[in-house]
């Protein structure tokens, strides 16, 4: 039966983000029960590491996965971070898109404030169970909550709340989820995620009690990385919608002041040049700007030569930490790392660092992709890192196969940025900006060259051993022939040949005179 417009209008209503998520959980990494388990742990561990780092605490992370039923698991993630103040706990865990990281431009693991509350919602949707949170800032009180999310309002629903004396002054946060999930230890597993996390965060201690036993990733260095700084956005990447929103929220009184104060690296001269080119009076109050003004401003910004954003806001792992992480977790025979200088995409500074580990305990080849110290385990094919690495002909670097299919090698690529351009909300792959691919490629190639030098040394060493084998192989026959010719003792000659080989076998014998041979 046909409906009229009025009837149709009745069916239109706002949807809450929680409702949206309920129907579109795959967008946040909950496509299946195996991946869901990983996503939950990832969100919790990322938050713990972010919090520890911001509070300058060396992290001790404890993760436990316990099977309760065939497809039902209890997940515990506990840290020694700064703890969460009582009144923030419900919102952080019980409201989607609530966070401290979205509006500031600073390198961190989390970005959107959607992850951990998404995990709470997933638990609630699959098992109906509330999530338990215990936290203390290290004072006398230990707070505990049992939380759910009111899906239609996107607000926390407190099922139970308690306060206990914190007698031994424990500090940190502990979360317990009960979810429907499946635990596997394949290549895109919790175990692999924690291993890569341990490599990328060698200053953290991570203990993992899996359903199959305990794994301990011991801290390799005692130093936290440099604290990243927050920066204002850069004009280069700004789009019309963002510009108009920022203009309406700014505290500045003039357009020129708005450009100078709300963006990074804009001076008076640049601001005036932009206004002149856009035919906008620099003294205009930003709130009075209309759509046409913004369009002209955007055009003018594109024409103006802008100073690159500052790059001291980034905190790469650094060469030593990277090497330390790869060594302790992979036990390779060779490892090295390359840290590129910062570069800029669409106004956002970013930095690429690459570590390569070869041989030793490594079996087969693997590319480890990381963004802001977080391992990316899915959507490898869409990732800028995969694209950059697969375009390299590895035979040029003395590896035995063009595509690494026969080499024991781990290529670890980390992108640090105040804003990592992910292909989707579930943050599984990096978007393929040409400048990002180029930077990755240059870093990988530089590191691969170092590996190539090592490998050609190895090849040479093998050749020397082979040469010795050939020389010794003929000793017996030659000794017998020479003994017959000279009357000397065969044993004596053979012994002397072997001594000669021992003495001189390492020498490189070039074919200096091959005209006749």
């Amino acid at each position, binding site marked *: 039966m046909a409906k009229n417009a009025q009837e149709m209008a009745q069916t239109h209503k706002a949807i809450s983000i929680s409702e949206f998520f309920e129907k579109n959980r795959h967008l946040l990494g909950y496509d299946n029960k195996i991946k869901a388990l990983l996503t939950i742990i990832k969100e919790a561990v990322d938050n713990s590491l972010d919090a520890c780092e911001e509070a300058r605490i060396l992290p001790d992370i404890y993760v436990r996965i316990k099977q309760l039923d065939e497809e039902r698991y209890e997940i515990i993630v506990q840290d020694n971070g700064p703890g969460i103040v009582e009144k923030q706990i419900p919102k952080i865990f019980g409201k989607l898109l609530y966070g401290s990281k979205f509006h500031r431009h600073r390198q961190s693991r989390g970005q959107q404030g959607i992850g951990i509350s998404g995990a709470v919602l997933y638990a609630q949707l699959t098992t109906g169970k509330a999530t338990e949170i215990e936290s203390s800032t290290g004072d006398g009180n230990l707070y505990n909550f049992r939380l759910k999310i009111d899906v239609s309002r996107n607000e926390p629903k407190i099922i139970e709340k308690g306060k206990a004396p914190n007698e031994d002054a424990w500090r940190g946060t502990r979360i317990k989820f009960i979810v429907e999930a499946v635990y596997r230890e394949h290549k895109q597993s919790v175990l692999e995620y924690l291993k890569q996390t341990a490599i990328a965060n060698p200053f953290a201690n991570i203990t993992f009690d899996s359903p199959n036993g305990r794994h301990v990733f011991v801290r390799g260095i005692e130093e936290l990385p440099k604290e990243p700084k927050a920066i204002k956005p850069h004009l280069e990447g700004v789009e019309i919608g963002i510009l108009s929103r920022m203009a309406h929220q700014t505290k500045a009184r003039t357009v020129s002041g708005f450009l100078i104060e709300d963006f990074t690296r804009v001076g008076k001269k640049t601001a005036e040049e932009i206004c002149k080119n856009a035919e906008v009076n620099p003294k205009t109050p930003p709130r009075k700007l209309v759509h046409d003004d913004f369009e002209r401003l955007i055009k003018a910004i594109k024409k103006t030569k802008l100073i690159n954003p500052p790059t001291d806001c980034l905190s790469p792992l650094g060469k030593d930490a990277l090497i330390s992480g790869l060594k302790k977790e992979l036990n390779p025979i060779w490892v090295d790392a390359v840290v590129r200088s910062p570069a800029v995409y669409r106004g956002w500074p970013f930095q690429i660092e690459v570590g390569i580990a070869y041989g030793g305990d490594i079996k087969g080849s693997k590319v480890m992709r990381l963004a802001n110290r977080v391992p990316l385990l899915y959507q490898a094919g869409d990732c800028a890192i995969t694209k950059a690495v697969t375009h390299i002909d590895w035979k040029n670097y003395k590896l035995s196969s063009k595509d690494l299919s026969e080499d024991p090698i781990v290529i670890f690529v980390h992108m640090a940025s105040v804003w990592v351009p992910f292909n989707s909300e579930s943050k599984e792959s990096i978007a393929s900006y040409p400048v990002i691919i180029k930077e990755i490629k240059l870093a990988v190639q530089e590191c691969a060259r170092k590996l190539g030098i090592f490998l050609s040394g190895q090849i040479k060493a093998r050749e020397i051993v082979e040469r010795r084998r050939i020389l010794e192989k003929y000793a017996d026959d030659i000794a017998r022939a020479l003994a017959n010719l000279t009357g000397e003792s065969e044993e004596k000659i053979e012994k002397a040949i072997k001594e000669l080989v021992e003495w001189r076998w390492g020498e490189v014998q070039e074919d200096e005179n*091959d005209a006749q041979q």
Partner: protein
Amino acid sequence: MPSSKAKSQKSPSEIEKKLMEMAKRIVDDIYAKRNPAIELPIRTLSNVYFDEVSKLIRIGDRKSIRTYMNMAHTRKFMQTVLVASECKKIMDQQVTTSVRDLYYALKHTIKGSKENTFDDQSESDPIIEDLEAALNTLREELNLKTDRKGYLAGGVMINDMGDLINAKKMGSSGWAIPSNVEPEVIKFEDVSADYILVIEKDAVWQRLNEDKFWRDHNCIIITGKGQPARGARRLVNRLHKEHNLPVYVLTDADPWGYYIYSVIKQGSINLSFLSDRLGTPEAKFIGLTTEDLKEFDIPKNVTIKLTKEDEKRIKELMNYIWFKPKEWQKELKHMAKEGFKMELEALSSKGIKFISKEYLPQKIENKEFLP
């Protein structure tokens, strides 16, 4: 019984001494922890020259050093020592053996590997030549023989290890020329012939033998069946040197036939160190030439079109210094220009006995030779 043992031991020959000296130097190198080396004359075009005085191809001074520690040489070094040792063994036993026997005597799997000392005879033969060159000797003096190749008939009485052979009474097959024709084995008792005719092809030799050409023209006819082996070349060299017999060569009119002539005359690149013993610089080329087609009115339809390879080989011959005489340059140019070659059998188109009754007598009578 020490006395009988002492009796059976002969004193080592000059060649044996050279072999032992070479081995002694190698052993001294090994004891002194030096890289053991064998010095070998280089036997390629880059190290031969044409001696204008003797008119022979001679080997140059350049040597290659085959060393044990050079991976590109190691296997050949081992092979050289093995061949040297085997030669000493057979000389000790005072027997001779064929190069094929030597190959089999030395071929075995190297202990602790799947590798053979020699994979086939083409590996051991060049080593023998290396040793001949290094010791400046003939393989026959190393008690090695090659397969017999080549036949002879005509006015010569040969003493072959005490057996008297009349080369006029060899029937239809002729006397097979042995590998070793050195004076210790072969002596010429009586030489009645006036000259030697060397023929490339066995079939043509048989024709001339059947026609008793050697009797009618008082000569010796020899065939090497293609490129003559060293026995035949050495025999020609000795008959010429010791009995002053002129030597005439008859081959196909093609670059390969002309090269056979040049090897009989000047020696070869590969055995350039033996040219004194194997070359006969006074030999003359009697035919065939492409000019003969016109001169003897041979029908054009018996000629063969030159192949690409023939053309390439003609160019190479024209560049060899021993083909520089103007008569040869003229002939080669003519062949290339006319684009044909001719086999000896083409003469049969004028009648089966044309070669023995007309062609050769006329050429020899008029001294129509190429130098």
